[in-house]
């Protein structure tokens, strides 16, 4: 196999492919391999896995469809793409579930093998859509490539003596081989992967590799595909890159935080979608002194993490929204005892069990206020899969420096989505100083009387605060002379004994809040992306909407208009210059995958008339729709019409969809 080809090569600047099939068809793996190939080729990319909560939903049905979308380009891109240029559909249900997302002219590669009466019935097709050639057919507007992927796979792997069923399972690799050929992807990493993955079952290994190659050769030889496409590498800054998902980056960030703080990491957790991969990953890295504790429930997970923090470890608990609900009382305990703790919430659709495998940003107010009492907790959010690494280190920095639980809000899209990530230099990562208490810190009244106020401290006050950060000492067992008791009851300022004094409670409540507010002193100024400086409309977001907002803004700018963007990593406390920034713009738009939670906070804090753009569809916001919302506000603010036609590519002039389709159509002739 070689990327040398005998067919004409057409250039494209970007392509969006969606692989869709039954949840047992291996579509996530197929998409992941295609992504790795594209990443190692040097394209910029972004991915969007989408799968049902059921492990194996009924075969052949719409609820059982699993898909993986990958957007790859020769330039910097921000999102997994709104609509696929190419759909690979492994069965009628996959076709039916996804065809509605395709733009006119998109290419559809279908496995004809599964278009049986039975499967068509299951998908709800009265007749085979592949056989309807009329102009009113459901597929009339698309370039359809019917291929017997399963049949050709079975034929290709028959020498390995597998059952028909096992042989057919390699069809995803045939499809991957075909699509890899179409876009000239390097194949070495996939062959190496299959060799590793099925090392113990040589027949399966060889069948998969053979199917993968057969798919490639099919593309190369069949007349149905007359053209190969090329998407050149994207120019990026020098460095070592890898493709990374948000959950992996977040786990690596936690490992790094432990190393940078020189602390053992203790993860107390309970499995929950979509956060479990953080547990899986950290459990592999015990060599860094990491302990992973799979607790009996969510509460025990955070309880153990708090216990470990009390003992001087970096306590972490990871979960999703329903788990945070259960942990709320324990988070309050960490607020009261002022112990370092990182709480990772990989958000999913809610409320209650909600949509476990879909993304949402609806736990922001829970993170802010979901506890009894005045219980301030810093909240930070990563903006992309790779950014989960830095955000995790930042969460640990705040937790350790300020002796507080910190809420780190990832989400399902970040967790499972991926992007090329430039591997940072360890030397460039921030150091984190635990600064454990080493001995008495206070001069007792008796001592002061006998030896003066400057006498050597002879007692330990666990709630004496650092003047700069207002943090109390991290005083861990095993240190002589600092024995003390902490707990959930209100503490007297300073010496920390139980206090029911009303003035003290008022003071301590304000101190706990002031400590969190002080974190803002350590934050760099917010960057506003406003190239012309003339924008009247500001778009502000947080978390995983960074990509769609950025892509939407590019479209508006491409249409010749000004619009500014700010994206928040720190939501509690807000950066100090946010209020001043908000005042600079006539209109503030806040896109969120919730019903307006950041909007509520901004309105309350800054009295700004924030306008929400809100969707809770379990999927990322679409750049095109966002662009329209932004354009409407820009048109109003500037009093001019905004024409977004010809801007529906990420930031290029060509329309790859139509070019692409024309070429496929040409190939079919």
């Amino acid at each position: 196999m070689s990327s040398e080809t005998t067919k004409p090569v057409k250039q494209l600047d970007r392509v969006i492919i969606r692989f869709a099939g039954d949840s047992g068809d291996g579509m996530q793996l197929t998409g992941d391999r295609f992504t790795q190939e594209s990443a190692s080729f040097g394209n910029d990319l972004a991915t969007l896995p989408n799968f049902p909560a059921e492990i194996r939903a009924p075969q052949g049905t719409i609820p059982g469809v699993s898909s993986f979308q990958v957007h790859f380009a020769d330039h910097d891109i921000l999102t997994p793409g709104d609509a696929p240029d190419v759909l690979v559909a492994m069965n009628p249900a996959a076709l039916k579930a996804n065809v509605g997302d395709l733009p006119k002219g998109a290419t559809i590669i279908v496995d004809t093998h599964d278009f049986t009466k039975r499967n068509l019935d299951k998908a709800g097709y009265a007749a085979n859509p592949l056989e309807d050639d009329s102009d009113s057919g459901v597929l009339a507007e698309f370039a359809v490539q019917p291929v017997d992927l399963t049949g050709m796979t079975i034929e290709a792997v028959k020498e390995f003596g597998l059952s028909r069923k096992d042989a057919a399972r390699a069809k995803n690799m045939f499809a991957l081989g075909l699509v890899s050929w179409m876009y000239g992807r390097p194949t070495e990493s996939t062959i190496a992967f299959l060799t590793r993955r099925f090392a113990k079952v040589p027949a399966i290994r060889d069948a998969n590799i053979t199917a993968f190659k057969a798919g490639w050769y099919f593309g190369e030889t069949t007349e149905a595909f007359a053209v190969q496409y090329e998407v050149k590498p994207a120019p990026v800054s020098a460095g070592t890159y890898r493709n990374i998902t948000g959950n992996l980056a977040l786990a690596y960030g936690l490992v790094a935080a432990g190393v940078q703080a020189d602390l053992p990491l203790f993860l107390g957790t309970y499995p929950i979608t979509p956060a479990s991969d953080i547990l899986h990953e950290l459990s592999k890295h015990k060599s860094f002194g990491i302990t992973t504790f799979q607790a009996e429930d969510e509460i025990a997970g955070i309880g153990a993490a708090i216990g470990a923090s009390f003992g001087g470890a970096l306590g972490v608990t990871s979960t999703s929204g329903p788990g945070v609900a259960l942990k709320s009382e324990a988070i309050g305990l960490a607020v009261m005892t002022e112990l370092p703790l990182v709480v990772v919430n990989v958000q999913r659709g809610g409320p209650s069990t909600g949509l476990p495998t879909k993304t949402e940003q609806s736990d922001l107010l829970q993170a802010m206020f979901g506890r009894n009492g005045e219980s301030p907790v810093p909240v930070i959010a990563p903006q992309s899969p790779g950014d989960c690494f830095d955000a995790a280190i930042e969460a640990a920095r705040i937790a350790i420096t300020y002796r507080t639980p910190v809420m780190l809000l990832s989400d399902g899209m970040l967790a499972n989505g991926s992007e090329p990530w430039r591997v940072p230099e360890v030397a460039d990562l921030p150091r984190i100083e635990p600064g454990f208490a080493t001995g008495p810190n206070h001069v007792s009244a008796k001592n002061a009387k006998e030896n003066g106020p400057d006498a050597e401290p002879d007692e330990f006050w666990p709630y004496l605060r650092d003047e700069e950060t207002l943090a109390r000492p991290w005083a861990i067992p095993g240190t002589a002379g600092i024995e003390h008791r902490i707990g959930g009851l209100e503490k007297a300022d300073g010496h920390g004994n139980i206090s029911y004094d009303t003035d003290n409670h008022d003071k301590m409540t304000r101190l706990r809040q002031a400590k969190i507010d002080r974190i803002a002193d350590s934050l760099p100024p917010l960057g506003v992306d406003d190239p012309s400086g003339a924008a009247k409309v500001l778009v502000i977001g947080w978390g995983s909407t960074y990509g769609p907002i950025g892509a939407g803004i590019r479209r508006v700018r491409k249409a010749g208009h000004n619009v500014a963007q700010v994206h928040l990593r720190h939501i509690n406390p807000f950066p100090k210059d946010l209020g001043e920034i908000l005042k600079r713009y006539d209109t503030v738009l806040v896109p969120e995958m919730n019903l307006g939670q950041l909007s509520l906070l901004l309105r309350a804090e800054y009295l700004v008339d924030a306008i929400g753009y809100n969707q809770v569809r379990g999927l990322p916001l679409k750049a095109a729709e966002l662009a329209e919302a932004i354009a409407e506000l820009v048109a109003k603010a500037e009093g001019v019409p905004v024409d977004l036609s010809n801007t529906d590519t990420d930031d290029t002039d060509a329309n790859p969809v139509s070019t692409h389709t024309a070429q496929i159509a040409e190939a079919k002739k």
Partner: protein
Amino acid sequence: MTTTDPGTDLGLPSLRTGTELVPSTDATQTGKDYTSDQEVRWCPGCGDYAVLKAVQGFLPGLGLRRENIVFVSGIGCSSRFPYYLDTFGMHSIHGRAPSIATGLATAREDLSVWVVTGDGDALSIGGNHLIHALRRNVNMTILLFNNRIYGLTKGQYSPTSETGKVTKSTPMGSVDHPFNPVSLALGAEASFVARTIDSDRKHLTSVLSAAAAHRGTSLVEIYQNCPIFNDGAFDAIKSNDTKHDAIIPLVHGEPIRFGATLEDGLGHKGLVRDPATGGVTVAEVSEVGTDAILVHDAHNPDPSMAFAISRLTEMGYLNQTPIGIFRQVDRPTYDDQARAQVATAQGGHDDHPGDRLAALIGGGDTWTVV
């Protein structure tokens, strides 16, 4: 093994003791060293005072460095305990102390970790954490103060209150079936289960010694009188007139006999196997003969007999109950094994962690752009 009175050596392999990895001190300690400057605020006559005094009197004998001892509690009257001890302590949230202690004990092998809890804290809201701590066998000692009532919330029935109990929340009598904490712990495969009484300082201290020496989770149920909301709940086992008939004493290696003494100096009643049920019943020694009487074996790997004995606890008013160490067996602890896995994974790594971090994050399928 440094087991105390009930634990004679049965030739079991010598495992680490509960406090083996905790730094010791040669300095002489007294109960006063373990007394904090906080005023004790339990009700006058509360059984908690006696337990506190016993613990303060007992801790110096461990010979451990005071700063390496941690008491963790939940919520309830007994959970105020840590404030009165001059060690490290955490008065945490309702029912969660075992989970916090699990994290602490796993993260720090050099600490002697104690949990103080009550019947409501451990068996109602925290029941899940209790059974999981016991099955994991984390190295810690759980002191379960059982007064069979809710005290801090002013007198509702608890999960150990007898059926029919009339309380503020059950004016017509409770219809809840109570837990037997010892049976529960044995069912959760606890490696050390004992029961003692607040007012019997000598017995309480001996059980605490054995519990502290045990490596793994030690559950000590302490019958504790609440003079305000459930006064007299344990009178039958405390009164000199009745206690010989009410207490079934468990001493490892001794025949289990109680009641008024016979010529051999032992009680006229004894425990025998009941072939009909497989359980254990009380019999007159004169009728069954001394050879039929069970000899207590706390180290029996099979918990069936210990469980059968635990069933002799009267679940209504406490007119009869076994007291002592029901079970003490050696079994690997969660925290030792978790640390061993970390140590194994760390073995052979003498390079700088930063270098290994660079190798980790720069691993996988990478490509370089120049």
